[in-house]
């Protein structure tokens, strides 16, 4: 490279992200056009109003690559959400309850003409048109190789892996950013649903940077419902939330474990005991 070019390249802040994306090759298929790149400023042009949800999950960039084979088409969308928790979050909020998930990247699933998976900081969506049984065929084979290219050590967020398995509603584990339970004061949380013959409750876990940050959540939540909890100490609290019903909180260190939904004391205690143990 000549010095002039080096100088210019240093002067112009070209995005390394755009340059570093290499779409996978698909045997028997050819690329159809250039890779399209979208950022927060033009994502709306690609997914319309759905973009706002992606923004709430720390959306950074999207690369769209199209392939064709005769009349058949494949579209590959790679969403970069900046970190694995945010990527899992947007994946989890779009994952159907009925999805048969498997180890594609950290986790993924496919149907006849679609395949979605999450790995590292990326949420990947693949679509096919006019290609029979693409989901378990060309999309799956492509996804497996491509997932390894994106992230060599894929894994779900630690708290997701800690969620108790008994009575867990399939695919109910999600990450909700910023406004958990519709309250800005609560910030972000992981949640999962548990169902028994007596009802359904939601277990949630908030992981804050410090114990001080966690106790502030407990404090603000009490203020919100106009209740004086007295001196706050690590332990259990009941919030009578006018919007979300009774919410049980357990605060320890930088974690808050909580429950909403049906009042199932035995299930709640069991889940709490398991989560406390696992978080220690």
């Amino acid at each position, binding site marked *: 490279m000549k010095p002039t070019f080096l100088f210019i390249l240093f002067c112009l802040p070209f995005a390394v992200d*755009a340059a570093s994306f290499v779409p996978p090759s698909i045997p028997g298929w050819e690329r159809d056009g*250039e890779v399209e790149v979208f*950022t927060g400023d033009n994502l709306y042009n690609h997914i319309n109003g*759905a973009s706002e949800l992606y923004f709430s999950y720390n959306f950074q960039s999207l690369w769209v690559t199209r392939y064709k084979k005769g009349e058949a088409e494949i579209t590959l969308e790679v969403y970069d959400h900046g970190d694995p928790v945010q990527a899992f979050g947007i994946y989890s*909020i779009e994952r159907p309850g009925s999805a048969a998930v498997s180890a594609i990247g950290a986790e993924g699933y496919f149907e006849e003409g679609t395949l979605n998976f999450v790995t590292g900081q990326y949420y990947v969506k693949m679509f096919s048109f006019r290609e029979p049984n693409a989901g378990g065929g060309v999309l799956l084979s492509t996804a497996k190789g491509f997932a390894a290219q994106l992230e060599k050590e894929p894994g779900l967020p630690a708290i997701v892996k800690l969620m108790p398995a008994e009575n867990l509603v399939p695919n109910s584990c999600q990450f909700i950013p910023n406004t958990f339970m519709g309250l*800005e004061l609560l910030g972000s949380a992981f949640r999962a649903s548990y169902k028994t013959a007596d009802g359904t409750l939601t277990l949630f876990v908030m992981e804050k940077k410090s114990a001080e940050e966690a106790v502030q959540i407990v404090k603000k939540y009490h203020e919100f*419902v106009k209740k004086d909890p007295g001196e706050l100490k690590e332990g259990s609290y009941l919030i009578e939330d*006018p919007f979300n019903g009774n919410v049980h909180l357990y605060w320890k260190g930088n974690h808050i474990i909580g429950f909403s939904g049906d009042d199932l004391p035995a299930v709640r205690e069991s889940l709490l005991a398991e989560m406390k143990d696992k978080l220690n």
Partner: protein
Amino acid sequence: MFNTKKPKIMDKPALNRRRFLQLGVAATACAAATTSGMASAATSSEDKNKTIFRTLGKTGIQVPIVSMGVMRADNPNILKAAYQIGITFFDTAHGYQDGRNEEMVGDFLKDKARDSFVVATKIHVPKDTSKERFLEMVDISLKRLQVDYVDILYLHAIDDPEVLYSENLVEALKTAKEQGKTRHVGFSTHKNMAELINTAVEKGFYEVILTTYNFRLASDENMTTALQKAHDAGIGLVGMKNMAGGWLDEAKTKKVNCKAALKWALTNPCMHTCIPGIVSFEMLMENWTVASDISLSVTEKEDLQLALGETGMFCTGCNSCSGQCKNDLPVSDLMRSYMYNYAYAYPAKAWKTVVDAGVSADPCANCDECTVNCKSGFDIRGKITNIARIRSVPAEFLV
């Protein structure tokens, strides 16, 4: 089959405005706004203590001026609270959250009286989608929403009049209506809005239009005129993206005064309702205060005025710069190139745009004074000088 009257509001809401205030959720949002003459002509019922209703054109559907875009809500309790305080119109789309959004709305609506709410969904399809495929998608949406029909079925994100009147899509919408799957048909648009609205007025068929509408369009006379024509023609008009993205700068350090922005959109009496995306109870209450008071305070007006002064880095593509450069530079193309490189992180595209424009690496070098007056206030010479340098970089070094 269909009820065309104002949706019924629950008799005894458990959560009303007073209850919100008691909880201190939105104390600041509920501060009384200064009365403004700007809004006085906007509605016939501006009692500050009463919700303002407007009618969606000839559909006859009456809705509060503040409705709810559900696309970002993950918690059905927010819909519940919205419904209980008086919001009756809920907007979703077939594609939001890959269908999970419609499912959540459906879970919430399933035990509500059908005449107590208005629900709209949007379906985004390629132009050549068959009528049969479109109707399959409508059926999927109805199933997710757990309703026999939606009140408004939109073609989603239209920017081309040809697509708007493509035979297959018009036939699909007609059939959906004939089969009772929707009461009314419409389209949503966020690009080329004025042309599409004018086309719809001229050609007919569409009953409701969901359009981008915010304070950044204040000086867009084409848009203002188009809205007036649509309103006069009896087309229902629903506003979206009223907060213009919510931020004033690229670094997202300066927030839009969202309440003021929503009020601004609704001070136009042609705008029948708006659908701000609501994700929290705090946001719900702040927006809902606007439903009974659209008068802009002095501070709110100032905030919007200041917001208009923020130029950002995005060319709106108005093309008013065309022909202004004394060296005949293709200014609009070069602004797009700048945007490709710095906003979209796509230097290869920026390079190609510059090369295609046929300009040198320093096209402003021999010019003492820039004659181009950009409506958005861009430093045209600075941006061109910056981006034209990319021409010196070999294409193979760029991706």
